[in-house]
């Protein structure tokens, strides 16, 4: 099949990121350690240009390319833009942390760029193999990034766990995809969808395939009962890596869930809806309850992520356009909040000291009222208290769930968010009501401070004027 220039044009953001990642990898070899900042600036410039290209090549109607393996549509454009944004913020927060610890190497950013490329491919995939390709590219980079601090035992342990469980999940997904191929004779998402639609009822093979695929996706999302890796990896990885894992890949994971379950297996909605209900309820329950017992902030945020995944699944399982839109809104706001919360840990950390225990936030209000306030906004937003954006995300998901007459599910969700509110406000309590034990100054990197402030205010501001993104 002849490839047209127009098709390359559609994939231009991916091509650009790929080219720049390779180029930076090579150029970085010739940059001395004291001018490593050049690498960093090139990476950020790559992201900015990628965003401009994405905006330039966006298409009004969904277009398929490269033998129906690649799709460009509105969802892909929006999600890619947010992936650039969140990744860029992640890189920015990472810089002072890495510099303080002698980890400021070009590899971190190159791996990050390749991981982002994987996410972009996932977001734009319209073929099961493309999805798998993107997912593996992302995962391999993340394994390496978790182990980035190679002298640290916990990092290596976390990377090992992540790798073994991640490989298992990929295997599950691949197995499911192969069965799907057997049942429908194609791996193109659109073709699979029409094959399923043509079939009378759902065959056993299809259901099996679905099960394996859902398990694989649940692993990647970190939904209960496939969540075991999440707390350990979040805890063990260097904080900037945790920040990265906890934010942008979730957006990409949401995208493949949409592509696979909704676009591809939409005909089996009755079957996967039940599975997602179980995953969602368990995630909400386990995530929120176990988070209460955590004393480490990174672990607490890991469990909180699990509970947010539960909410995300609620939006998807509603099975309506409103539900999908709500889930998308939810995952984007979640990524913003997660980036901010991990950014706060970086802000409080310094060389030789990780501020990842809850105790390290003691009396932050007395030390620095402004950033205590930012964290307060982030925590209330995660708890879903108005007027923060987290409330509107929960509101839209609940709305979607109630719309399809699953009021009981909404009740379960709000019940567990009350339990969840406890550990968020406990952190507020620690910041505001306890007196400080640690008087050291906060990270003084002005870029970090400014972006963190913008991050926090965005969570509040979007809450007040959320009309602009919900559309």
């Amino acid at each position, binding site marked *: 099949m002849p490839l047209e220039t127009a098709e390359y044009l559609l994939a231009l953001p991916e091509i650009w990121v790929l080219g720049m990642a390779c180029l930076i990898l090579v150029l970085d070899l010739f940059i001395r350690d004291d001018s490593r900042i050049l690498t960093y600036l090139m990476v950020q410039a790559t992201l900015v240009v990628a965003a401009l290209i994405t905006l330039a090549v966006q298409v009004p109607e969904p277009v398929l390319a490269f033998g129906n393996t690649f799709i460009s549509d509105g969802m892909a454009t929006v999600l890619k833009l947010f992936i650039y944004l969140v990744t860029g913020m992640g890189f920015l927060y990472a810089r002072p942390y890495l510099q303080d610890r002698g980890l400021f190497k070009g590899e971190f950013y190159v791996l990050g760029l390749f991981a982002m490329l994987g996410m972009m491919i996932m977001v734009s995939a319209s073929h099961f193999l493309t999805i798998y390709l993107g997912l593996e590219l992302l995962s391999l980079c993340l394994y390496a990034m978790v182990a980035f601090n190679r002298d640290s035992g916990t990092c290596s342990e976390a990377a090992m766990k992540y790798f073994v469980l991640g490989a298992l999940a990929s295997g599950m997904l691949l197995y499911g995809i192969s069965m799907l191929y057997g049942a429908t004779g194609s791996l193109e998402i659109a073709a699979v969808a029409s094959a399923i639609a043509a079939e009378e009822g759902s065959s056993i093979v299809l259901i099996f395939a679905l099960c394996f695929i859902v398990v694989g996706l649940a692993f990647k999302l970190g939904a209960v009962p496939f969540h075991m890796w999440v707390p350990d990896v979040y805890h063990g990885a260097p904080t900037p890596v945790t920040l990265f894992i906890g934010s942008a890949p979730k957006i990409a994971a949401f995208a493949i869930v949409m592509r696979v379950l909704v676009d591809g297996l939409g005909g089996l909605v009755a079957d996967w809806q039940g599975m997602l209900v179980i995953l969602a309820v368990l995630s909400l329950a386990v995530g929120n309850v176990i988070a209460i017992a955590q004393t480490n902030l990174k672990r607490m945020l890991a469990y909180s992520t699990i509970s947010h995944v539960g909410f995300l699944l609620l939006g998807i399982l509603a099975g309506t356009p409103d539900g999908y839109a709500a889930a998308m809104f939810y995952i984007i706001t979640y990524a913003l909040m997660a980036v901010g919360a991990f950014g706060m840990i970086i802000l409080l950390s310094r060389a030789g000291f990780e501020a990842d225990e809850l105790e390290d936030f003691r009396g932050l209000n007395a030390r620095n009222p402004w950033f205590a306030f930012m964290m307060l906004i982030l925590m209330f937003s995660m708890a879903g208290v*108005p007027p923060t954006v987290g409330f509107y995300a929960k509101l839209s998901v609940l709305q979607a769930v109630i719309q399809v007459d699953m009021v009981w599910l909404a009740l379960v969700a709000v019940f567990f968010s*009350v339990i969840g509110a406890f550990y968020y406000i406990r952190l507020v*309590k620690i910041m*505001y009501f306890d007196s400080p034990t640690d008087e050291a100054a906060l990270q003084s990197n002005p870029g970090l401070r400014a972006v963190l402030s913008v991050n926090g205010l965005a969570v509040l501001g979007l809450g007040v004027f959320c009309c602009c993104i919900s559309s």
Partner: protein
Amino acid sequence: MANLPLLSLLIWLPIFGGLLLLAVGERAPVRPLALVVSILTFLASLLLYTGFDSTTAAMQFEERLSWIAAFNVFYHLGVDGISMPLIILTSFTTVLVVLAGWEVIKERMAQYLAAFLIMEGLMIGVFSALDAVLFYVFWEGMLIPMFLIIGMWGGPRRVYATIKFFLYTFLGSVFMLVALIYMYNKAGGLFGVLDFHQLQLGLTEQVLIFLAFLIAFAVKVPMWPVHTWLPDAHVEAPTGGSVILAAIMLKIGGYGFLRFSLPITPDASMELDWLIILMSLVAVVYISFVALVQEDMKKLIAYSSIAHMGFATLGFFLVFSILRNTGELSGAAMGIQGGMVQMVSHGFISAALFLCVGVLYDRLHSRQIVDYGGVAHRMPVFAGFMVLFAMANAGLPGTSGFVGEFMVILASFKANFWYAFLAATTLILGAAYTLWMVKRVLYGEVTSDKVAKLQDINGREFLVLGSLAVPVLLFGVWPAPLVEVMQVTIENLLAHITVSKL
């Protein structure tokens, strides 16, 4: 002048004032600044009264702008005869709270005052919101400053109290959120409170929605048996926090019944009115006994608040039994009016009593009744005020406390003799616990050296207590201005809720 967005001004002036205080920080003259903001807000809220048309039940001072277009959410504000007095009560109380914390609060004054001003804006927002999402945003947003107020400036067990307060109220309100979203879908994508009033709902739906509202509002009021957060929160909160809690936040629960439960689910209210009446009467009788044995003054007043709010909720839900009993509506309006008057009057009286305890606490740093005795010998002016407010709390004729209770008891006679009988026990029990406390604290011999060294109230305290004594006496002898503004609204409400939605 006619186009002035008065309600927005009332909401945002204190909020931005509070943010300004946070921005200028501790070194600036924050006290006068906060006072100016709160007084300006109070004066602006008086314009609501002067510009109010008490001959119509329609919403007044309306503002309506599109806010979240995707969900059809509007920034829709408006007041009627029920919400207007409560807004004025809010702005009035905030001025007193700012004054009351003038010298007492030593740490982080700017944050303290900012929290109260932001609170004020949010509470006015709750009373004036006519869009369910907007209402919910203000309603929940209110929790954040209160959480911080109790937790940062409260007593020794403040952390326990404030987390309990937050989780209790949060639990209550999320179920309301589900009910609101359910109605949004039922109404075909509308979040307007007034649209909900017209929404046709089946009985099962109504009962479930009613229960969801009941959890939210009963926690806020608070009604027995979900009242246990209140004594803890009151005891640990700083004086200003207790005043705002008792005078306004509790009223928000009562307001919710009138704005949401009754008009949206009239049939469920009719089915389940026994439940509310039962809970209210238990609050009136049982909680009064509980108040009797308290040794901590703030706890005693907290329990007395629960008992008094029981009167308000009793008054609101008498209408259906009056209708069943007599077949007509005369007298039903008096129940709701009585409840409203009770809420406003309790706002003044409970605020005054908490401020009185605050005056004593600032001097002796104890709230225990046994630590006092014979205070009247050393603080005669203060004793005069405290006796006045205690009498008002006990429902002495001539004070505002009497008017509301009397109206509710009269209305309950029409419903059922035993309701009236049980409700009337409060006249005895209320007098017993309040006056007994006054006797032990103010009278008798001077028991300790510390009491012997007490100084009488200063000018600032005199101003605060004096400005509360005026409305207590004024509405006691002449409640007409208060009753008149709500008359038409309440009659309209009654006409609405007696039409079945089935």
